[in-house]
C-alpha cells in the first residue's frame, strides 16, 4: 500500500470516528432532553403549577410555593448582583484601565466565576445562616449573587471597552465630568451589551441547586418571607425526586421542565439580543 492510499484511509477512519463521536455525544444529550420533555410534559397540568404544596401520600397539589420562592430568590440575587457587578466592571474599564490593581481584580473575578457553587453555599452558611441561627431565603439570594457578580463584571468590562474612546473625548471636550461621561455616554452606548450579560448571568444562576441547599434550604409551605427558609424549584426537585411518592417524583419532573424552559428561555433571549446588537 503506498503512502497516498494509507493517508486516505487514515483520513477516512478519523472522519468517521469523529462523526460517530459527535453522534454519540448528541445522542446522550438528546436522550436527556427527550426524557425531560416526555416526563415533564406528561405530568404537566394547571394543578401542578398553581396548586398548593402537596402533602405526603396525597395525589393533589403543585409547585406554587417553589415557583414563587424561586422567583423571589433569583429576583433578590439580581437586585444585589447587578449594581455591584456593573459598578465593579465600570471600575475595571473606566477608572483602573491598565493599572495593576484592576488587572489583579479582573483575574480574581475570573477565578471567582469558577469557584464550585457548593463552596459558595458553605461560605454563605458560615457568614449568614450560622450567626443568625436559621436558614433564610435571602441567604440563598446572596449565594447566587456571589456567583452572578463575576459574570456581570466580565461582560460589563468587555462591553465598556468596546465603546470608542472618541465618544468619551467628545464629551470631555464639552466639559463633562467623568461621572457624567460614564452615565450619559458610555453606559448609553453599552446598555444593550450590559443587559445581555445580565440576562445570561440570570440564566446561569437560575438553575443552581448546590448554593441553595444550606442557605435558603426548603419549605413545604407557601411563604413570601425572605428571612425564613423558602422553597426553590431546584431544591424542591431534589427533595421530591428522592422521595418515595410517585406523585412527588412527577412534580419533580414538572419542576425540571419549568426550570429548564426558564433557564433556556433566558439564555436564548440573551443570545438573540447579542446577535442583533452586534450584527449591526
Amino acid at each position, binding site marked *: 500500500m503506498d503512502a497516498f492510499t494509507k493517508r486516505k484511509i487514515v483520513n477516512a477512519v478519523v472522519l468517521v470516528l469523529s462523526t460517530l463521536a459527535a453522534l454519540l455525544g448528541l445522542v446522550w444529550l438528546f436522550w436527556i432532553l427527550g426524557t425531560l420533555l416526555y416526563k415533564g410534559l406528561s405530568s404537566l397540568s394547571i394543578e401542578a403549577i398553581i396548586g398548593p404544596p402537596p402533602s405526603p401520600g396525597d395525589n393533589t397539589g403543585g409547585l406554587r410555593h417553589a415557583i414563587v420562592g424561586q422567583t423571589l430568590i433569583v429576583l433578590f440575587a439580581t437586585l444585589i448582583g447587578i449594581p455591584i457587578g456593573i459598578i465593579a466592571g465600570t471600575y475595571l474599564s473606566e477608572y483602573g484601565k491598565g493599572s495593576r490593581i484592576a488587572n489583579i481584580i479582573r483575574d480574581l473575578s475570573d477565578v471567582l466565576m469558577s469557584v464550585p*457553587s457548593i463552596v459558595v453555599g458553605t461560605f454563605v452558611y458560615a457568614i449568614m445562616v450560622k450567626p443568625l441561627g436559621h436558614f433564610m431565603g435571602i441567604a440563598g439570594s446572596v449565594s447566587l449573587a456571589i456567583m452572578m457578580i463575576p459574570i456581570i463584571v466580565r461582560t460589563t468590562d468587555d462591553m465598556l471597552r468596546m465603546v470608542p474612546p472618541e465618544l468619551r473625548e467628545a464629551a470631555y471636550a464639552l466639559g463633562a465630568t467623568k461621572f457624567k461621561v460614564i452615565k450619559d455616554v458610555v453606559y448609553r452606548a453599552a446598555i444593550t451589551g450590559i443587559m445581555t450579560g445580565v440576562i445570561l448571568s440570570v440564566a446561569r444562576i437560575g438553575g443552581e441547586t448546590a448554593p441553595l441547599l444550606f442557605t435558603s434550604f426548603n419549605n413545604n409551605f407557601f411563604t413570601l418571607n425572605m428571612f425564613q427558609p423558602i422553597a426553590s424549584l431546584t431544591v424542591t426537585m431534589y427533595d421530591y425526586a428522592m422521595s418515595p411518592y410517585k406523585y412527588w417524583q412527577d412534580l419533580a419532573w414538572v419542576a425540571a421542565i419549568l426550570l429548564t424552559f426558564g433557564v433556556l428561555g433566558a*439564555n436564548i433571549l440573551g443570545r438573540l439580543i447579542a446577535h442583533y446588537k452586534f450584527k449591526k
Partner: protein
Amino acid sequence: MKKDFLLDWGFGKLAFLGALLILVILLSLFVVLYKESSLAIHTFGVWKFITSKVWNPPMEKFGGAPAIFGTIVSTVISILIAVPVAIGIAIFLTEISPYPLRTPVGVAVELLAAIPSIIYGMWGLFFFAPFMRDKLQPIIHATLGKLPLIGHWFSGYTPGIGLLTASIVLSIMILPFTAAIARDSFNMVPPILKESAYALGATKWDVMKDVVIPYAKLGVIGGIILSLGRALGETMAVTFVMGNQPVIPTSLLEPATSITVTLANEFTEADTNLYLSSLFYLALILFVMSFFVIVIGKFLFLKKVER
C-alpha cells in the same frame, strides 16, 4: 457645579469599592472556610485527615480520604470519557459538518451546556442507573472485567449507582462545555494556514493533525483544565447517582462518595461542631483544589490565547 464634582468623586470611590468587593469576597471565602474548619484541622491535622479512610459521624471520627478519592477518580474518569468525544464533536463542527448544519448543531451544543446540572442528575437516577444495571454492567463485566490487573475494578453487581455511573453522568454534563471551548479554539486557526496545507495535498486529518491541533493546542488544553475544574466542583449531577457511601470502593461499579456529594447530603444534618467543622474542611480542600486547577488553566494556558 460643586454637586457635579462631589458626584464625580463619590462615583469613582463607589466604583473602586465595588471592584474591591470581589477581592474581599474571594479572600473571605478562604478565611471563613479556614476559620470554620480550624477545629477539624487541629483535631485531625492535614495529612492525617487527607489519608484517613474512616468517616464515622456517630463515633466523631472524620477522615477525608473516601471523599477526596471519589472526587479525584470521578473527575479523571469523566475527563477521559468527555475529552475524546468533545474533540470529535469539535472536529465535526469545524471540518466535517456541511455549512448549513454548523450553526444549529453548534448552538444546540451550547444550549445543552446551559441545562441545569440537577436535570442531568435526575436523568441519571431514573434512567441511566437502571440502564447501567441492566445493559452496561453485563457488558462491562464481560469486557473490562476480564482484563488482567485492572479487572477487579470492574467487578461486582450493584443497583446501577456508583462511582462509574457518576463519572459517566459527569462526563455527559461537561461534554458540551468542553466541546464548545475546543470548537472555539479550532475556529481561531487562520483559514490561510489550513488552505496552504490543503494546497499541498493534505487530507482533512493531515490538516487537523499538523495544522489545526498544534495551533489550537494551548486553547484546547486550557479548556480541558477548565472542564476539570467544573467536574471537580459539580454537585447535583453526581449527588443522585454516587450512592453516598463513605468508603474507598474496590470496584468502580460500587457506590462511593465525593466531596460535593458528602457536603450536599450531610451538611444540614451535621449535629456536632466537629462534624460540621470536618465538612467545612472538605469544602476548604475542594476550594483549594479547584482554585489551583482554575489558576493553572486560566493563566498558564488560556491567558496566552485570549485578548
